[in-house]
């Protein structure tokens, strides 16, 4: 851990896992949706469900969906603010097998009707891990720019994606590849050291064999 994992973050209390981590999950979900959310159905698992209200987990998740960071002093009023800006949020409980005790499942719909379902866990100290995006099992923190690509399982597709990244001066920090079955649909999760420029996203989007592109920009606001 670097020293700012020990010291900090600056955050609205009371719990780095149940409040700061929850706000981060909300914000990452908004970024994965890629547009302004208008409806969110949030399911809480384990300790999130049991002690969430007392820890403000509900308000923190909503605050994140509104684009707030964990230190935003408006966080405690987020449910009221959400209503004001036309974001409808509902909460429920869920029991997920083998999930981290601080896990939330967010199904969010944006202005254009686009939706995304994100499952993420709050690991402590405000750090989080996204474990599922729609039907794709993943594992990333959202600390780095992250690309989620759906691609056909055919020779050369990973090389083509890697080549496009390298041509734009983007270094791959981690790359996870999995496929449903031979010759079927596959998925790449790429964390990079540099943000992904818009023209690179478009190039990936129009690459033959790449079916869909989702991009998480940790610095970006929507």
């Amino acid at each position, binding site marked *: 851990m670097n*020293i700012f994992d020990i010291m900090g973050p600056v*955050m*609205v209390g009371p*719990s780095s896992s149940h*409040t700061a981590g929850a706000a981060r999950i909300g914000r990452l979900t908004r970024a994965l949706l890629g547009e302004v959310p208008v409806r969110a159905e949030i399911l809480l698992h384990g300790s999130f469900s049991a002690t969430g*209200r007392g820890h403000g987990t509900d308000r923190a998740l909503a605050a994140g969906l509104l684009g707030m960071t964990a230190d935003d002093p408006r966080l405690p009023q987020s449910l009221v603010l959400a209503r004001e800006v036309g974001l409808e949020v509902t909460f429920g409980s869920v029991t997920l097998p083998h999930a981290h005790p601080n896990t939330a499942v967010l199904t969010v719909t944006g202005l254009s009707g686009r939706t995304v379902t994100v499952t993420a866990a709050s690991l402590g100290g405000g750090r989080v891990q996204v474990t599922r995006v729609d039907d794709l099992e993943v594992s990333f923190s959202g600390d780095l720019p992250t690309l989620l690509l759906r691609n056909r399982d055919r020779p050369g597709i990973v090389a083509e994606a890697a080549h496009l990244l390298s041509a734009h001066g983007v270094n791959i920090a981690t790359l996870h590849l999995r496929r449903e079955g031979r010759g079927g649909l596959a998925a790449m999760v790429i964390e990079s050291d540099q943000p992904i420029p818009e023209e690179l996203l478009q190039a990936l989007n129009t690459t033959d064999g790449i079916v869909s592109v989702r991009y998480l920009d940790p610095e970006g606001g929507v």
Partner: protein
Amino acid sequence: MSFNSVESLLDASRDLPLWRAVLEHDCQEEGIPPEQSLSRMDALWQAMKSAVADYDPARHSASGLVGGAAARVESSPHPIVGGFVTQVIAAAMKTGECNACMRRIVAAPTAGASGVLPGVLLPYQSQYHTSDQEMVHALYAAAGFGQVIAARASISGAEGGCQAEVGSASGMAAAALVSLHGGTPEQMAHACAMALKNLLGLVCDPVAGLVEVPCVKRNVAGAMNALACAEMALAGVESAIPCDEVIDAMRSVGALLPDSLRETGRGGLAATPTALRAAQRLRGGAL
């Protein structure tokens, strides 16, 4: 790699102040210039001060269990010690109460233990008129020891009990005080070791699972313990067990703690009849 032993931290501090060794090491790891790191640490220090400055005794936590206590301590008509020590109690409590009331604090190392470092550092600054820069340096010393604790043991109550949260914060605060008061790196290590030893085995048993009872008052215990251990270390008192071994012992004690005493809200104080009644009352409004 971050520092994973106090011994390596002391080694790195032979030719330069310990805080500087921590700063340089981290900048190298992160690939950032020292000014960037220093301004980030300064922002944390300013946020610690703001949390205490913004304290409002009228505020209460969502459960109603926390609020107004620090103000009572400050205005006590008949204190035993008063002065610096009363300020330590009040500053630790104010931060803890702000945290429980969903105000902005600095997790150091966690939100639950956020009162310990400001608890000793704010009164120190007003007593000794140290510059903000020196206070920021002390935070690096604290972070260096915190890094070792996180690497060898844990700073999470769910993993290691309250010894990992308030205990770790207390060890870090003791080292920071020694650093501020002109002690040697060895004395910082002794202060940290003693502070950890005194809180070894402290369980995490929050009432209704909330960061309120007993967390706020345990921050006071962590701060007072840090003060006493720094005082001892500066006087030349040494820990019989080296700091690294104490941290390793803390890890094994944490592993031996049952689940019920590791932030599940099921054992210890959380299992008392009064706590169960409070939990029952709160569950009426649970999600």
